[in-house]
């Protein structure tokens, strides 16, 4: 169609910048974040698969995982993160994708986990066949194992178009010094690390460094694999929970993580579709600002 002035003005008015929107619709995009290296948007709440998706050939648990994925896609989808280290989780993902017949919106993230650099491509190919995807959106070097060699492989794959993003991972607060070094020397798209209301070490150097270097941050263990939720389960919700629209401890904990300005994606894992919805909901309501976050951390650390 030809571009007329009327059409151009109409298009501008229709864009989010100019449209008058009802108050509820203002929440629409708060559940997305920009990937620093590309500017593309991604839902801030993703899905982890450590332990929850390692179910072997169990038909009931495979169905349960498929249900979790289906709920995840229905709620906006986003990053699903796995690894060869997670037992049969990769196959569970692939079977889930086939079972629910839906693959959008999916940002596929996995890891290369071998001390042998030469074995990396073969392992990644096996991973890809488990997922039944044509290529990965993100491939990460798991726990920085043989990181220099694998990064060389991954950047070459990215150059050739076989891979969209490159990253590295750590967890449990381990190897932060080495991670910082790798972040400074390589043009990574993502780093994955542990960050939650009680494990805040990343705030000191790594999160600011990620911002400075234009590296997206993926947060694992937002609940310390459920331990934090367990710990606070019997405690009454703090009085300030309603101010940030949190109706459960899980939402409080997740909102703390995703409200940090340098966090791109959090990847809580779960076996329940209801918890997927609850996690996704945490990203849609109000989020605490910096002062509120400090108050949250201080308050929660006394419980």
């Amino acid at each position, binding site marked *: 169609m030809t571009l007329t002035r009327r059409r151009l003005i109409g298009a501008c008015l229709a864009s989010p910048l100019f449209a008058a929107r009802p108050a509820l619709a203002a929440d629409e995009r708060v559940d997305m974040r920009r990937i620093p290296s590309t500017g593309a948007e991604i839902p801030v709440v993703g899905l982890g698969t450590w332990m*929850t998706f390692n*179910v*072997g*050939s169990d038909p009931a648990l495979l169905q349960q995982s498929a249900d979790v994925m289906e709920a995840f896609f229905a709620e906006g989808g986003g990053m699903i993160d796995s690894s060869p280290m997670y*037992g049969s989780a990769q196959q569970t993902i692939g079977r889930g994708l086939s079972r629910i017949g839906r693959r959008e919106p999916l940002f596929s993230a996995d890891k290369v986990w071998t001390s042998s650099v030469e074995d990396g491509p073969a392992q990644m190919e096996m991973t890809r066949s488990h997922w039944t995807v044509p290529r990965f959106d993100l491939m990460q070097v798991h726990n920085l194992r043989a990181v220099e060699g694998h990064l060389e492989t991954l950047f070459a794959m990215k150059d050739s178009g076989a891979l969209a993003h490159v990253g590295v991972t750590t967890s449990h607060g*381990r*190897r932060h010094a*080495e991670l910082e070094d790798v972040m400074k020397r390589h043009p990574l798209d993502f780093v994955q690390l542990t960050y939650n209301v009680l494990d805040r070490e990343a705030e000191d150097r790594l999160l600011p460094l990620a911002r400075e270097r234009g590296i997206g941050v993926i947060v694992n263990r937002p609940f310390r694999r459920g331990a934090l939720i367990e710990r606070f389960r019997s405690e009454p919700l703090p009085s300030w929970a309603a101010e940030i629209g949190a109706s459960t401890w899980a939402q409080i904990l997740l909102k703390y993580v995703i409200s940090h300005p340098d966090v791109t994606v959090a990847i809580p894992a779960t076996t329940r579709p209801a918890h997927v919805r609850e996690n996704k909901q945490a990203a849609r309501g109000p989020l605490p600002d910096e002062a509120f976050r400090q108050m949250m951390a201080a308050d929660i650390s006394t419980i």
Partner: protein
Amino acid sequence: MGDWLMGDWASYELQDFLLFAEPTYWRLFERLNAAFWPFQIPVVLVLLGGLLVGFTSPRMRRGLFGLLGLCWIGAAVGFAPLYAEINWAMAYLAPLFWVQAIGMLGFALLARASSGAEGTTFLRLIAGMSVAVAAMLIWPLAALFLRGSFSSAEVIGVAPDPAAIATLGLATALARGWFAAALCVVPLIWCVVSAVSLITMGALAEGWLVGAAVIAILAARLFGAPATAGRA
């Protein structure tokens, strides 16, 4: 290796080596039991009957060890492949089940009729038999009391823990010398692995149940050693 050099090794807990959630583990037994049903009850009855007869007659005793050997094969063929799907370490442990089974079957078929429990002390006999009976009855019952249903019961014949514990009990009660000790190696290894795994995954009661059986057997061997000089 890098984590050791960086001093991060202290941050590792047993939890970090557990790859699956507790419900996934008990589901293994639900599936096994569904596949094995209705053979659980006859198997337990035959073994209990064998226990009663076994300590009266050397030939029956050998037959009992043979039956238990078949239970190890059941664990190797039933439990091990399912568990290996979620725990890569099982692939390394499964051969031990076969070694144990072959050892016990070999004894059942080839041993001299008189080898066995002569000279076993009363304490070892009672403790060993009690532990063996517990393996066959308490372990399935534990599913009902600890997890609310028989569906995930660990039944001797396909489940490894009852086979291991029954073997420890029988080896203590009805055998002596180097053979009794040899029979206990694989079961002890498995019991330690199982107890640690169960406790790590959050099944504390089930884990300590295994631990209690092991402690009872070790105590019986220690305190029930024969009065005569020589091997325990």
